[in-house]
């Protein structure tokens, strides 16, 4: 048994290491151990953030990136979820589709970048397509696995009590598969950011990735670091959202 930790320290302890690293980094920069050309000090990054915020530029980049991430996630996630659902429930659907999906799944989706550029050009569609493709498979696999591993006895119980079709699905099958589905969601959120970062460095004129690539042209180290920090924060944010849903949907298990 782990000892119980009080509320406020529970909130603070996870931020101890990131905080110490920031303070140490700032300190070493002051002393001149970390040259500006290699890595700007945290305060400079903060300064860059404030400047970019005041012009409204940062705001736009963030919004566009978030929009791409969300659109890709929703499209890929829904397709993966539906495919997992059909293949989990119907033997015929599984026979027909699973082999093809497994083959596609093993192609690294980022390897398709040249093809995707030729298909969709370099505008929004190609980025959303890549994110959707990356997100699809983790959600598919976990939904499929979740539905296949719902306790057969519970399904039989539901049938014996007169549940069928929709009511059986929503009362027994979907809740039974939910924890596995949420694992897929959490995993795919990671894939979502990864894909977006790569996709945004291809060629674009707005977005966090663009901001970083553009800053490289002008050797603006602070902006480059800022965009990396932003990705880290977004990663943490999506993790918090995923945890929130796990807490809500799986509260019977806590």
């Amino acid at each position, binding site marked *: 048994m782990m000892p119980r930790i009080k509320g406020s320290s529970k909130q603070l302890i996870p931020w101890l290491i990131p905080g110490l690293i920031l303070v140490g980094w700032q300190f070493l920069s002051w002393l001149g151990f970390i040259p500006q050309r290699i890595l700007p000090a945290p305060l400079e990054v903060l300064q860059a953030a404030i400047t970019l915020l005041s012009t409204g530029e940062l705001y736009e980049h963030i919004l566009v990136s978030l929009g791409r991430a969300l659109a890709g996630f929703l499209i890929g996630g829904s397709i993966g979820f539906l495919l997992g659902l059909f293949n989990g429930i119907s033997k015929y659907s599984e026979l027909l589709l699973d082999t093809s999906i497994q083959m596609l799944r093993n192609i690294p989706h980022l390897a398709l970048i040249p093809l995707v550029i030729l298909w969709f050009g370099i505008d929004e569609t190609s980025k959303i397509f890549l994110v959707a493709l990356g997100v699809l498979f983790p959600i598919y696999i976990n939904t499929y696995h979740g539905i296949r591993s719902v306790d057969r006895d519970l399904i039989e119980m*539901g*049938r014996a*009590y007169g549940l069928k079709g929709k009511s059986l699905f929503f009362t027994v099958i979907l809740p039974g598969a939910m924890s596995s589905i949420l694992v897929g969601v959490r995993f795919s959120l990671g894939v979502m950011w990864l894909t977006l970062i790569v996709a945004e460095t291809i060629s674009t004129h707005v977005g966090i990735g663009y901001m970083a690539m553009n800053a490289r042209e002008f050797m603006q180290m602070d902006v480059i670091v800022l965009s990396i920090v932003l990705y880290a924060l977004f990663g943490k944010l999506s993790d918090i959202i995923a945890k929130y849903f796990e807490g809500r949907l799986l509260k*019977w298990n806590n």
Partner: protein
Amino acid sequence: MEQLEQQLKRKKHISLQGVSKSFGDHMVLQEIDLEIEKGEFVAIVGKSGCGKSTLLRLIAGLEQVNKGTIIMNGEALTQLNKYARMMFQDGRLLPWKRVIDNIQIALSKEKEVKAIETLYHVGLADRRHDWPRNLSGGQKQRVALARALVHDPELLLLDEPLGALDALTRIDMQELIEALWNDRGFTAILVTHDVEEAVAIADRVLLIEEGRISLDQKINLPRPRRRTQIEFSLYVEEILARIMNRKPYKEHIVKKPIQTVSV
């Protein structure tokens, strides 16, 4: 005359005629003939793997017969038995539904009062907002019992529902089931490996051996039955001996009702 026939028919709540069931090459039940009256409490005992649970599942309509017919309320059973509710060995509560919602799974929302009432009858009305994982084994089975009874079934099927409980909780549950059966007058079929439990609760004990009913024993003891009664022990012993030794008895061991001995 016709009326009398009808009455006779109605009295036979369930009747099995030449029922056989096999899984692949493995014959589980062979040519079972059985009649159960309305309101009767029947216990089925036998070694594990003898086919007693399969028989129950056939009557529930969860499995289909290979041969023969099962007639329930005068109709041949071809699908799920709508008059019956089953209580499973492991309870099978949905872990993601609170106690009250578990009871209401196949019940319309307006019947919440009835759900609470049924929970009250099994003594768990105050736990209705708990998650199943926070209940003890016995409490889970009480909820499962309430879930079965909330539908007012004519036939309650009990598939070793007390097998996993400790001895004290088990006696508690047996008394509860008997009391509810007394109150509501449903027909009950209990599958159990515990002969004492069968004798304590049932009007009639069936022994299944190698897929056939090898013993059909009426228990002529007044209720409530006390386990300390000599007749009680006699019934238990006779049936146990029959199960363990498999002596080639041609007739039932306890042929006549045992004389009551004053203790």
